[in-house]
C-alpha cells in the first residue's frame, strides 16, 4: 500500500548521551530513520541531547533540537512544532519511555500526535511485565514463573514463592539497569530495593531463574499488511544469567535443529502480532533448556535495539531504515532490497558466513567495581567480526577488541605472566 499522505511531519526522539547499556547503536538507527523519512518527503523534527551524534548534523532533519530529553521539554517542542506523528522506536529505551509518559500525561492526545511504529498499547504490553506475561499466556507461550512487586515487602513474599536463585527485572529499563540475580534471601532485599529504584514505575518482576540455559534472540519485522519476517537469529555464547549485551554472541544461531528453530520462529511471529507492534522491528529473547529443549520467552523489545544494529550489519538488511519506511505505510514487498536492488525487502536474509560480537569491558577504569558479569550490563562497547567459520570470526573478534590479545587462548596478556590469571579464562579485561 502506498505511503501515507495524511501526515506531513514526524517527530523523532533520539537516545541521548552514550551510557552503559545504550550506546551509539541508536545514533546509527536514528540517522538511518531520518534519512529514510526525509527521502520520502516528510518533515523530520529531531530531539537529541547528545551532540556527538551524526543524527544531529544540520542536514539530517529539518528541525533539530539539542535539548534535554525530559517530558516537559518534549511537550514544549510538540507545542511549538505540532508534529503529526511521533516515531518512538529508534531512540532506544529513552524514546520509548518518553513516548509512554507523554501519552499517559495526555500530551499526545492534546496536540493530536499519532504514535507510529509502536503505539501506546503495544509499548505497554511489551514493557509492563505483568501485561507481557498475560499476553504470552494468551498465545500459549511459556514464560518463567514470576510475580510482581512494588515494595520490598511484597518482593520478599514473591521471592519465597518463586524460590532461589531468582532474577530481579525492573520494568521500563534498558541494558538491564537495576536488574540482578539473587541467590538467597540475605542478598535479596538490597537487590530488590535497587531494582525498584531503577524502574520508571517502581515495579520489579521477580522471576524464576533460568540461569545456565541457552539464550537466543530473534530480530523480527512486521508491516501493515501483517507480513512478518525474521531478519536474524542470534545465539549467545554466554548463557542466561549474563546480559546479552555482555555476552559473546553469534549469528546465526548455531545449535538449534531446524525443527527447534521453527518453533522459536513461530513464537516470535506470534509475539510481535500479539503485542501489536503494527510496523517495524522488534527484538525477542528466548531461553532454551539445554537438557530438554524447553523454551521460555524472556522478553520482547518493541523497538530497534543493540542487536538490530548487529543484525543489520550481519545481514546487510538495514532494519532501522526499513522500519522507518514501514512506519509511514509501505509494506515489505514495496521496499527494494538494499543488497540486490532488484528484489523486495520481504525476505529473510540467509548468510554464508558466521558473525561474532564480542563485548568490550574497561574495568581497569572502574577500580573497585565488581567484575562479575550478571544480568545488568557492564560492557562499554563491542566489536563485531565476520568469518567463514565460527573459529575464524571468534579469533578476529578478539583482535578487534584492541586489548592486545590475539585470540581466545592468547596468554601474552600485557602486564601479566601470572599463570593463575591465565587459567581463569577469557582475557577480555585488559
Amino acid at each position, binding site marked *: 500500500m502506498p505511503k501515507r499522505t495524511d501526515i506531513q511531519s514526524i517527530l523523532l526522539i533520539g537516545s541521548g548521551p552514550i551510557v552503559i547499556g545504550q550506546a551509539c547503536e541508536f545514533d546509527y538507527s536514528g540517522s538511518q530513520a531520518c534519512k529514510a523519512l526525509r527521502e520520502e518527503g516528510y518533515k523530520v523534527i529531531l530531539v537529541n541531547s547528545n551532540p556527538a551524534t551524526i543524527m544531529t548534523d544540520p542536514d539530517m532533519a529539518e528541525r533539530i533540537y539539542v535539548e534535554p530529553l525530559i517530558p516537559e521539554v518534549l511537550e514544549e517542542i510538540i507545542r511549538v512544532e505540532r508534529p503529526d506523528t511521533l516515531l518512538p522506536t529508534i531512540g532506544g529505551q529513552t524514546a520509548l519511555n518518553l513516548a509512554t509518559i507523554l501519552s499517559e500525561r495526555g500530551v499526545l492526545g492534546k496536540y493530536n500526535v499519532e504514535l507510529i511504529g509502536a503505539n501506546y498499547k503495544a509499548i505497554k504490553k511489551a514493557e509492563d511485565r505483568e501485561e507481557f506475561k498475560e499476553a504470552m499466556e494468551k498465545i*500459549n507461550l511459556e514464560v518463567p514463573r514470576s510475580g510482581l512487586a512494588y515494595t520490598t515487602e511484597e518482593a520478599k513474599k514473591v521471592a519465597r514463592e518463586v524460590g532461589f536463585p531468582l532474577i530481579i527485572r525492573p520494568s521500563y529499563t534498558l541494558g538491564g539497569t537495576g536488574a540482578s540475580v539473587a541467590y538467597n534471601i540475605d542478598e535479596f532485599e538490597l537487590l530488590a530495593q535497587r531494582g525498584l529504584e531503577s524502574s520508571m514505575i517502581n515495579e520489579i518482576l521477580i522471576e524464576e531463574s533460568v540461569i545456565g540455559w541457552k539464550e537466543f534472540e530473534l530480530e523480527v519485522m512486521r508491516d501493515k499488511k501483517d507480513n512478518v519476517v525474521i531478519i536474524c537469529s542470534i545465539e549467545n555464547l554466554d548463557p542466561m544469567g549474563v546480559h546479552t549485551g555482555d555476552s559473546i554472541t553469534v549469528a546465526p544461531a548455531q545449535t538449534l*535443529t*531446524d525443527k*527447534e528453530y521453527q518453533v522459536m520462529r513461530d513464537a516470535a511471529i506470534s509475539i510481535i502480532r500479539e503485542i501489536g507492534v503494527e510496523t517495524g522491528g522488534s527484538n525477542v529473547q528466548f531461553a532454551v533448556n539445554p537438557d530438554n*529443549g524447553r523454551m521460555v520467552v524472556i522478553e520482547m523489545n518493541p523497538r530497534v535495539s543493540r542487536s538490530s544494529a548487529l543484525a543489520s550489519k550481519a545481514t546487510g538488511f538495514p532494519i532501522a531504515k526499513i522500519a522507518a519506511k514501514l512506519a509511514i505505510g509501505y509494506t515489505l514487498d514495496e521496499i527494494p532490497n538494499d543488497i540486490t536492488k532488484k528484489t*523486495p525487502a520481504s525476505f529473510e536474509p540467509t548468510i*554464508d558466513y558466521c558473525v561474532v560480537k564480542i563485548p568490550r569491558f574497561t574495568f581497569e577504569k572502574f577500580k573497585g567495581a565488581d567484575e562479575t558479569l550478571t544480568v545488568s550490563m557492564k560492557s562499554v562497547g563491542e566489536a563485531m567480526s565476520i568469518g567463514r567459520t565460527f573459529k575464524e570470526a571468534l579469533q578476529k573478534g578478539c583482535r578487534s577488541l584492541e586489548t592486545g590479545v590475539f585470540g581466545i587462548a592468547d596468554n601474552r596478556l600485557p602486564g601479566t605472566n601470572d599463570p593463575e590469571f591465565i587459567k581463569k579464562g577469557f582475557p577480555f579485561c585488559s
Partner: protein
Amino acid sequence: MKGFIALEDGTVFEGKSLGIEGEKEGEIVFNTSMAGYQEIMTDPSYKGQIVTMTYPLIGNYGVNAEDVESGSPKVEGFIAREFSKIASNFRAQDDLLHYLKKHNIIALEEVDTRALTKHIRVRGAMKAVISTMDQDITCLINKAKESQGIMGRDLVKEVTCDAPYVYGEGQRSEVRGQRSDKNLELTTPTCPDEEQSVKNGVSSFPRPSSLVPLPSDLRVVVMDFGVKLNILRLLKKIGCHVIVVPAHAKAEEVLAQSPDGVLLSNGPGDPEGIPYAIGEIRKLIGKVPIFGICLGQQLLGLAYGGRTYKLKFGHRGANQPIKELATGKVYITSENHGFAVDLDSIKDQPVRATHINLNDNTIEGLEHEVYPIFSVQYHPEASPGPHDSYGLFAKFKDMMLDFKQMRL
C-alpha cells in the same frame, strides 16, 4: 585425503574427503538454508543431485531419528565448508560424520563453497562428478561431460515406493525404490506429535487453528514421486487416512481407494521424465480434489497440456518470498526445484496463477477455475523451513469436505 568436484564445463573444486570412498555423478546444486541439513540430505527430491550447502558450518547439532524426510539420505554427494566434529544439541543421537559414513554419502569439506555457488549462479546448475577416488582431474571432467544428467530422465522410479501402503499405522515405512534402502536404521517415520514434542521437551507453540486435528474420515491418496515424510505427517495430523501409492499407479487404482482427495507429491528430476504419471493424472482431473506440491504442480501443468522449463540454477532454500496474488500477502517458504510451469503454455486452460516468487516472478501456485484442483511449486510442509504455509493443508482439507458435501 583430497576429493574433487569436477563440473562439465571444466571447472574443478578441491576439498577434503570425510573418509567415504567413492565416486558419483549428479547435477551440482546449492541450498541456502542455514539449518535443516538432515531434512535436506534425506529429501528424495535430491536424488541425482550433488548438494552444496552455502552455510559454512554443517553438523552443529548432530543427527537424530526424527528429522528425516525419508528412510535414508538421497543426495549423490554433500559439500560444505566445514563439518562439525561434535554435536551440540540434546536431541542429537549421532554426529553427522558418523551418519554420512554409515550411509556411504560422499562428502567433502574445506571446499570454497562460495566460489562454487557463485559459479553455479552465473553458469547455471550443471552435470558434475564428485570423487574421493580418482585424482585425475581431466578424467573427472570427462566423466562429468559424459554423465547422464537429469533432463528427461526418470529419477522418480528410484525413490517411489514399491507397493501401496497406509501411512502411520505403526508399520515399517516401506519406502523402497529399485535400489532398495537396506539398513533402514531410521525406521518407522513418526511425526513429533503434540505428546511426543512435549516428551522431547520441544515447547508447544500456537499452531494455526487450521491444523487442530479434527476427527475426519477423509481418505487421501498420495501419489508417491519421492514424497517427503512431512507431507504425510501433516496429512495425518489434520486427521486424514493416508494411503500412499507408487508413482506408476494407474488412475483406476487411485480411484479404487475411494479417495476424498489426491495429493501429488514432490520428487526428483525432470517432470517430463515421467510421462506415465502425466497421463494418469489427466484422468483424475475433474474426478477428485487434487493438491499438487512441487513436482506435483509441474505434473499438473503438463497434464493441463502445458510446458515446463528448467530454471537456470533453481530455488533451494528456506527463505523464498512468495506473494499470494489474491490477497497481496507475502509468505516466506521453503523451496527446492529446478523446473517451473510456463504459464503462457496453459493460457487457454481454465487455470490461473495464484502465487509468484518475489525474487524472480516465476509462477509458484496454480488453481483450476472449474475443478477443485490447486498446486504450489514451493513446499508448504517445509521441513526444513518456515511454517507460514501450513494453512494450505487446511485448505486441502476444506476442499475435500466441500467436495464430499456436494456429492451427498
